[in-house]
């Protein structure tokens, strides 16, 4: 009786999983079918993000300073035209390997509004390291107005504010592999994912097809960067692929400036806890060996 009930139960659970698997199954192989299916069930993105081997992944992950410097260049020369980065101060760029002097010089390229002065007037002055990156638009409405109605999001936290659901059972494996790079993977995939829509698929006027976009088949931002647009002086390839990797890494830094400190502190904490636990285990074992329990 007990066995029968248990097997009935197992069958029920299996049936449940089978039905959900059917629900989430992607129909067909071609991109066009996937686009149509996504539109039908309202589930985006159409394609899962690509995986990049980031230097900052894993328990000993560190930022590649050269890459962050290149990413900063991409941000200032391309992204900054439309995207603000309000939470990042120039002084923190020293983490990228720049000297205090270099940061001062970098900040001096910008003008920021200050005031009011003694006459009660607002004025602009040259930026100093304690200033934050100035925004390209005075407010969100102006940003939306200049960009076809969709205000470009602030980039300070973008790498942590984006992430595609991993699904069962991947999200369980992620606990052991420490996968935390969903944000940069997503940004990289989006930037390299622009393409012509498949045959027979129409996208709304003024939007651009991208199967990696998180909430629709197309987005208001046109492909922002292409091969050769930014000059690198360290010999790195000036390709869309490299630009996309560099800006994604830089945005991860912008969102999580203390990542390296966090991981290296974590290593010491782990060593301490493991040794401490081993000692506790031995003590406990010796205490309990005296008695029946």
């Amino acid at each position, binding site marked *: 009786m*007990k066995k029968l*009930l*248990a097997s009935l*139960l197992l069958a029920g*659970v299996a049936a*449940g999983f089978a*039905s*959900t698997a*059917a*629900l989430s199954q992607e129909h067909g192989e071609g991109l066009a079918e996937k686009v149509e299916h996504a539109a039908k069930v309202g589930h985006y993105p159409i394609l899962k993000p690509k995986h990049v081997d980031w230097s900052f992944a894993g*328990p000993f992950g560190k930022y590649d300073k050269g890459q962050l410097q290149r990413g900063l260049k991409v941000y200032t020369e391309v992204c900054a035209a439309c995207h603000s980065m309000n*939470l990042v101060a120039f002084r*923190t760029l020293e983490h990228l390997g720049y000297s205090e002097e270099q940061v001062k010089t970098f900040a001096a390229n910008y003008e920021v509004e200050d005031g009011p002065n003694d006459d009660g007037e607002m004025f602009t002055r040259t930026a100093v390291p304690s200033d934050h990156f100035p925004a390209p638009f005075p407010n969100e409405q102006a940003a939306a107005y200049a960009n076809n109605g969709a205000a470009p*999001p602030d980039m*300070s*936290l973008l790498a*942590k*504010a*984006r*992430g595609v659901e991993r699904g*069962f059972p991947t999200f369980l494996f*992620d*606990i052991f592999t*420490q*996968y*935390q790079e*969903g*944000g940069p993977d997503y940004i990289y995939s989006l930037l390299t994912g622009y393409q012509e829509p498949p045959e027979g698929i129409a996208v709304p006027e003024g939007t651009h097809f991208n199967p990696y976009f998180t*909430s629709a088949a197309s987005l208001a931002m046109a492909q922002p960067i292409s091969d050769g647009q930014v000059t690198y002086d360290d010999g790195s390839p000036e390709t869309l692929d490299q630009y996309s990797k560099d800006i994604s890494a830089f945005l991860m830094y912008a*969102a999580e*400036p*203390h990542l390296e*400190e*966090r*991981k290296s*502190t*974590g*290593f010491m*904490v*782990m060593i301490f*806890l*493991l040794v*401490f*636990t081993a000692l*506790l*285990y031995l*003590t*406990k074992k010796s*205490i*309990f060996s005296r*008695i*029946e*329990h």
Partner: protein
Amino acid sequence: MSSDHSTYKPSSGLEKWLDSRLPILRMGHDSFISYPVPRNLNYAYTFGAMLSVMLIVQILTGVVLAMHYVAGTGEAFVSVEKIMRDVNHGWLLRYMHANGASFFFIAVYLHIARGLYYGSYKAPREILWILGVVIYLLMMAAGFMGYVLPWGQMSFWGATVITGFFSAFPVVGEWIQQFLLGGFAVDQPTLNRFFSLHYLLPFMIAGVVVLHIWALHVTGQTNPTGVEVKSKTDTLPFTPYATMKDALGVSVFLIAFAWFVFYMPNYLGHPDNYIPANALKTPAHIVPEWYYLPFYAMLRAITFNVGPIDSKLGGVLVMFGSIIILFFLPWLDTSKVRSAVYRPWYKLFFWVFIANAVMLGWLGAKPAEGAYVVMSQLGTLYYFGFFVVIMPLLGLFETPKRIPNSITEAVLEKNGKA
């Protein structure tokens, strides 16, 4: 904490002086050193220690975070980011606090499951159990309000959805909702009062924890056999035995906690909460924190009207009912046998209950459509069926296995010496 069999001996003059005025050292000695615990306690009995540690971690990190946090709709998000970027070790404090909430709930779920398995709620421990449910309710309120404070998209919309539940109640619903919000929508007054209450609730929890431990020390702990302590050979002094076992349990728990804090601090959060709250932009899916998901699934499982009760009110009643029913557990279980070890059928239904709760949690994160809804409804049916049908009936029909006469006998039997 009862001192009728106290073994405390003040050793110095100062201790004697203190003992005849405020016997606080005696109380500590009797509660945590000489206090007798069953000799057969396993690691399932160490979750209480983990919970105490997590409560202290949450209060300590929380008090420091509150020194830097600004409870304003325009400033909250930025002040949290200032903690993350500019406050010395602010990132550590905030990640400990955010993940600490999750680990607090992991420990409390294990603790509750332990209680269910070993029948810890049965007479004479009804009050002990009820106080535990009160603590759990307070934790849920504190966790919810804490999640609103960073003022991200999920904070804002989670608060909107959850306070919206109250509007389902007839006549008084809308009034309750506005009373909670301090207005017609989630805004500055909501944030201010949630901050105030979020600071208050942990101290209320600490107060109820004292009562919980007091009640525990009056009745004594249960143990895996469910047989009450009968003689001195059944017990061991709290220190060093329980102390060491608790310390080891806590240490292993802290390894898991540190794994999340240092290596995947955002795994248990939602990316949308790194987008500042925007009242004009609803997120695609509003998902509560993982620890509420089973209840969220039951709320959404009610898609039909029952007589005068529409589906919205029905869902809210089912959700609140799923917690309220825990208060009646000591009287719903009719079995004379305490521990699941000697109850073959109860053991089976218990593990199905656990699997069902996990499944409901998974469903709570899925969109409420198609097969998911049917599965949620079946899950809800089993959740309530377990308490109101299975528990009362099992006690009448189940034939328990032979129960040992004493804890000592069980221990000797296990070690092959009887």
